[in-house]
């Protein structure tokens, strides 16, 4: 009798453990372990990055490094490799920033690669004015409708005044 109870108990434990394991397995999605893969959001505007995407993934830091010295020391403020323009295109539609939330463009990859970004100790993570707006940049003009659609939730009246101009 005692043996049978023990057997049943053991069976119960095995069944329960399997169930718990299966449940836990279904919860944490990447079964292989490691950090969650970065979420790479498509740039809010523009079709193609200023350089080839693969090249930028590996070398954006070099590109920015060369550009920053030209800007600060010589005063050559070309737009092509400017961090400000990166932010203008890549700021998230939800947070309006490239580094505010963990899924935002810069942070997403950098936390996956475990590389600290120092840029935003000094640089703003948000585009000038409102979401992805650059008043003198005609390339952004076609996003006005997108902004208007979001007006109720994300864009303040003040920002909309800027867009309307």
């Amino acid at each position: 009798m005692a043996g049978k109870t023990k057997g049943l108990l053991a069976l119960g434990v095995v069944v329960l453990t399997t169930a718990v394991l299966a449940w836990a397995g279904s919860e944490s999605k990447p079964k292989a372990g490691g950090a969650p893969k970065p979420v790479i959001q498509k740039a809010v505007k523009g079709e193609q990055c200023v350089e080839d995407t693969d090249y930028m993934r590996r070398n954006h830091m070099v590109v920015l490094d060369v550009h920053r010295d030209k800007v600060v020391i010589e005063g050559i403020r070309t737009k092509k490799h400017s961090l400000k323009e990166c932010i203008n295109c890549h700021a998230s539609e939800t947070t309006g920033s490239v580094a505010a939330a963990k899924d935002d463009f810069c942070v997403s990859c950098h936390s996956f690669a475990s590389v600290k970004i120092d840029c935003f100790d000094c640089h703003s993570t948000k585009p000038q004015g409102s979401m992805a707006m650059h008043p003198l940049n005609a390339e952004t003009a076609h996003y006005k409708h997108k902004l208007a659609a979001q007006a109720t939730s994300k864009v303040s009246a003040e920002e909309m005044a800027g867009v309307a101009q």
Partner: protein
Amino acid sequence: MSELKPMSDQAPESRDRRRFVGAAAATAAGLAIAPGVMLVEVAHGRPEDQAASSAVRWGMLVDATKCATGCNDCVTACSTENGWTPVTESKHPKQAPQWIRKLELQDPLTQMETNLPMMCQHCAEPPCVDVCPTGASFKRADGIVLVNRHTCIGCRYCMMACPYKARSLVHEPLNDTQKPDVPRGIGCVESCTLCVQKVDRGDGNTACAEACTAAGHDALLFGDMNDPESEISKRLRELPTKQVRADLNLNLGIRYHGI
């Protein structure tokens, strides 16, 4: 008048040339962004792919006789443009950045009061550049003295060396409150940049001078001291001006009248 005559003789030719330049600018603008949009930018400042030139020396004339008692508009305009917290709103007033500050002086003998704004004097021979161990403190080709925050280690030697107490250190994290055009951050020294972002954009004026004019005082005049035809050069020729601590022989970019 004698100079105007030959100009009018050449009028047809120069008009043709102007039309050509206009067309070229419009083409360039069309390629760059869109027609009409870039034209404004092309018309004023230097092209964005061109480095600051030593042919230009930016400077400012401060007319202390016009600077009004109690007016703080230049300081407010600077903090708004460049995104620094004014001393009055700071949690740590003694550490608060001061890119520009108003001084009210009184002669103890005559009781005469003088008002003037004090900021980085943009020396031609800046002591802050001499002492910087990393080369972060530097003078740009067009005479603007700046801090390269990418190389600044926050040692504050330059703050000690500056005879004008023009520099401040950012002590606290700024938590993404910076202006996109004016990066600044914890652990770096900073000071007046003569609104370098506006100069490069081609605005041709600083936030403080704009505010002073808007307030009707006209005490600040910004311009190119190397161009003999610029407003500032003309005024400097006419008015008796002084450099603060002229004995140091630093050849300042900021000149004062009425002190």
